């Protein structure tokens, strides 16, 4: 357990120190959302209707741009080999790094989402389901992203490839995240959507651990 937490602490410290990962992610998040009123027009009603979707998709993209830096620096400077030799199983290493990634990207995005909702004239009822689904969905995104990031280690132009690989896998997380907001706005029960979103998170957890560890072993040969 202490090895797990030590790895999480190390990764968060590195991300914050090296290039201010959290700030970059939040910056991208805010700037991209600000582009939408320019694209679709500032009409408050239109923006309010698509606000939840904009926030969700931009959260996905913001989490994805930092995925290349999840494993590649460790592979290049040899830390990945040391982590593989540590008493912590490689699957736990993957989950620890995903947790650190989420703390640095997904969590700040989730906390800033209400402010973005305000800017996009989001319906008052939609705030709570949006934040709850983001809080559940962004860890799933970090985990799914880790699968993609570990698979392209050592590939030419792997960073560009990660998006193509993981964005199709994000679709279920996105669908149920948005459907929870829509259900609230329609007055329908919201718990089923939240429970399915949580189920997706729990399915992604072992999947990412084993697929990611397998891909890391592949990269280290």
């Amino acid at each position: 357990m202490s090895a797990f937490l030590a790895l999480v602490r190390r990764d968060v410290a590195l991300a914050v120190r090296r290039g201010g990962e959290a700030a970059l992610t939040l910056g991208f998040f805010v700037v991209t959302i600000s582009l939408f009123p320019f694209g679709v027009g500032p009409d408050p009603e239109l923006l309010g209707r698509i606000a939840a979707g904009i926030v969700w998709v931009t959260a996905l993209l913001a989490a994805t741009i930092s995925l290349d830096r999840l494993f590649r620096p460790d592979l290049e400077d040899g830390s990945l080999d040391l982590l593989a030799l540590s008493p912590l199983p490689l699957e736990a290493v993957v989950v620890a790094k995903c947790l650190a990634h989420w703390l640095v990207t997904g969590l700040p995005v989730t906390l800033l989402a209400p402010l973005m909702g305000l800017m996009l004239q989001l319906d008052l009822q939609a705030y709570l389901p949006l934040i709850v689904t983001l809080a559940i969905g962004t860890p799933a995104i970090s985990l799914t992203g880790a699968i993609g990031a570990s698979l392209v280690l050592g590939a030419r132009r792997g960073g560009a490839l990660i998006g193509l690989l993981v964005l199709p896998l994000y679709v279920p997380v996105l669908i149920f995240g948005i459907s929870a907001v829509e259900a609230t706005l329609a007055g329908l029960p919201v718990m089923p959507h939240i429970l399915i979103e949580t189920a997706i998170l729990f399915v992604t957890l072992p999947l990412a651990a084993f697929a990611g560890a397998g891909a890391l072993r592949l990269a280290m040969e």
Partner: protein
Amino acid sequence: MPAFLHSLASPARFQRLSRRVLPWSSLLAAGLIGTGLVWSLIFVPADYQQGDSVRVMYVHVPAAWMAMFCYAVMAAMSVSFLIWKHTLADIAARASAPIGASFTAVALITGALWGKPTWGTYWVWDARLTSVLVLFFLYLGHMALSGAFDDRERGGRAAAILAVVGAVNLPIIKFSVEWWNTLHQPASVLRMDGPTIHSSMLWALLVMAIGFTAFYVSLLLIRIRSELAARRIEALQRLAAAGSS
């Protein structure tokens, strides 16, 4: 049975088997698809609601079935490669990907062409269409990933992992029309209660489906044989270069 399946992993045995199977599967494919096309375009009665536009179904549905079947084969080959390291399984999986992607594209395009006269729109974001589109992107990602590495075997193993992870999309596609309210019609052939489609249409559909499958088998065998030949050429070139130095 397991011994038989593992014996298929030997390239020599594969070459012998495929040399015997290929002419027959090609003949079967040509015959069935030819018969099926004539039957469905001319002899099957027009639909009472859709008229003659229903004849697109005889290309659209088999193509969609093949799109999922190719992915299932790809995933099975990937599992075989990851567990037992059969190189032939890796070659088969990577040969299947472009064929499956093409079938998916055909299904999406014919579906759009069919949707315009019947639904009034080329595209709608319902569960079935969206999950098949995701399948198409999974194929493209697989093809991109397997070619992205300088070391070919690395690429094969990475793509194999991706194929297995993406296999979760197959049951989603199959059951999407039941789990969600979709514009795409629910299952009328592969159902627990038996097919609801009329026999005059069902048989032509099955003929096309088996024809498409034979076509896929022929294409796959040709691609695997070409890949094996290419690797043999490469090895010979390397030997020649080493010998002359």
